């Protein structure tokens, strides 16, 4: 490397290529996230708003009525749905640090029965609520515990128990 091209031990000629990329990395990894954080949420629930939880079929939808004044951080108000995007977005409304969110995920047991499963997260506990109907009988499952235990260490056991729920003939 010729002496006249040295800048801090680097080749000056490489800077016009490297610096724009460095700038792009900084913008993507730090500047954009900082801008996103700086903009406040401003989408308060108006009286009469109803939020989608999901729309499993054309004919019906699952909804709830959020409390007036809470901020909609995620979710679609019935009547304001985008023309071509899916409505199955998990809604989340927040007020003074209290978050209310709902989401549905279908699951299928080892025996082939379908149910709905909801995860929830709180500052101290994580959990799973699941519900399914077996031959007309509703089954409700509640899993709750410290986040680390539920999410990581016991996940496999929880999953195995969930999918093992089934109807059996007595004596089989």
């Amino acid at each position: 490397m010729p002496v006249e091209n040295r800048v801090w031990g680097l080749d000056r000629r490489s800077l016009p290529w490297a610096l724009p990329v460095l700038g792009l990395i900084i913008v993507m990894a730090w500047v954009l996230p900082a801008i996103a954080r700086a903009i406040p949420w401003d989408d308060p629930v108006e009286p009469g708003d109803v939020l989608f939880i999901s729309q499993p079929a054309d004919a019906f939808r699952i909804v709830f009525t959020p409390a007036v004044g809470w901020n909609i951080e995620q979710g679609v108000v019935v009547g304001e749905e985008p023309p071509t995007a899916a409505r199955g977005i998990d809604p989340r409304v927040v007020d003074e640090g209290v978050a209310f969110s709902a989401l549905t995920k279908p699951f299928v047991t080892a025996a082939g029965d379908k149910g709905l499963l909801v995860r929830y997260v709180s500052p101290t506990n994580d959990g799973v609520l699941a519900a399914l109907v077996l031959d007309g009988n509703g089954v409700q499952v509640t899993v709750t515990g410290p986040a680390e235990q539920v999410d990581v260490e016991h996940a496999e056991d929880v999953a195995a128990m969930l999918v093992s729920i089934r109807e059996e003939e007595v004596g089989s």
Partner: protein
Amino acid sequence: MTDTTVAKAPTARFRPVQPRNAAFWVLWVPVLIGVYIAIGRVSTDARYYGTVLIVTTVYFAFYAALLWWFTQRIDRYSQLPWRMVVTAFLWGGFAATFTMAIHANDALLEIWTKTMGQPWAMQWSAALTAPITEELAKGAGLLLLIALAGRYVRTAFDGFVLGAFLGLGFQIIEDVVYISGAFGANFGAEPLSAALTTLALRSVTGVTGHILYSAVFCAGLVYLLGRSKEPRRVGRGITLMLLGMLLHSLWDSGNAAIFWALGAGLTGVALGPLIGMIEAAIVVWIVFKMTVANERRVTREELEPEVASGVMSAELADAVTGTRRDRRRYRKDGKGVAHHRARKNQLEAAFDVAAERDRGDGQATDRLVFARAELERVTQRVASTAKD
């Protein structure tokens, strides 16, 4: 070495370690950060979904190898050094994804939602987020590769091929992340089937995904910059870069803009992916044809001294730098299986001479001398098997 052995073209050298080059640091530090983030994500899953993760890893290794082979076949005229190609893959897979795009995507989605409202964001944010951030992040890798070894990036076609590898890395690593997401989606209930569904879906669409968008984008970037064998064409460059983003955007939004314009609503959305694949295939074919013509012309010019000194005939040089059909015509000229095979070997040997010229910058290196001797030997075989 027996006289039946044909010398295989050793590819040119590319030095990934250049501490005096600022691009070296700006390339490898983000790659290492990306690897660190990626390992953190994968190992969390490995603790309870180990088996599934191994299955998918094996699957993707196979998938990567397949695409690798395919992309290598395209780069026929003057092969890029393999170290450079691997570097492109690593930038695309780790730096562009984990160090850059994921942060920017989350942030931009949040910005769209906060400023434009939820319904607007749901409809348009997919089209206006990843296509911009991800194409820029992958394209940045090309700038660094040019700074590290600019002499190998001479034409828009070189940009096209490197772009494909930048995209290949991105595609494969992104797929692994999507699948980790699929494991978690059902909280472990039936992780295998959930993962396999995602896997099947993404392997079908992957071919027309990141690989093609960034091939188009990076070809455009080379036109915009101008290189030693590719005069600067700003308009064409910017058009191709925007086209790469647009293809990506149409794909991510399921061609929502088109259906919205047509008033087709939800019913049309199901057709989105199919249309996206067709659009991408058409555009890439056109850009490939556009860039490869100059690449062939440049390679043919570089072979002129070999033709002048009688190492190869003009006819052979034309075939080597011609289309697949030209090479086929050359191979099938004359009669007899032995003759056709000799002509096939002659083409390979001529490719080796072209590669060695490229590698040694036209200097009479030992390897070039050897490649010429091999070509001469095979050419004699062509003459001796000819029957009229």
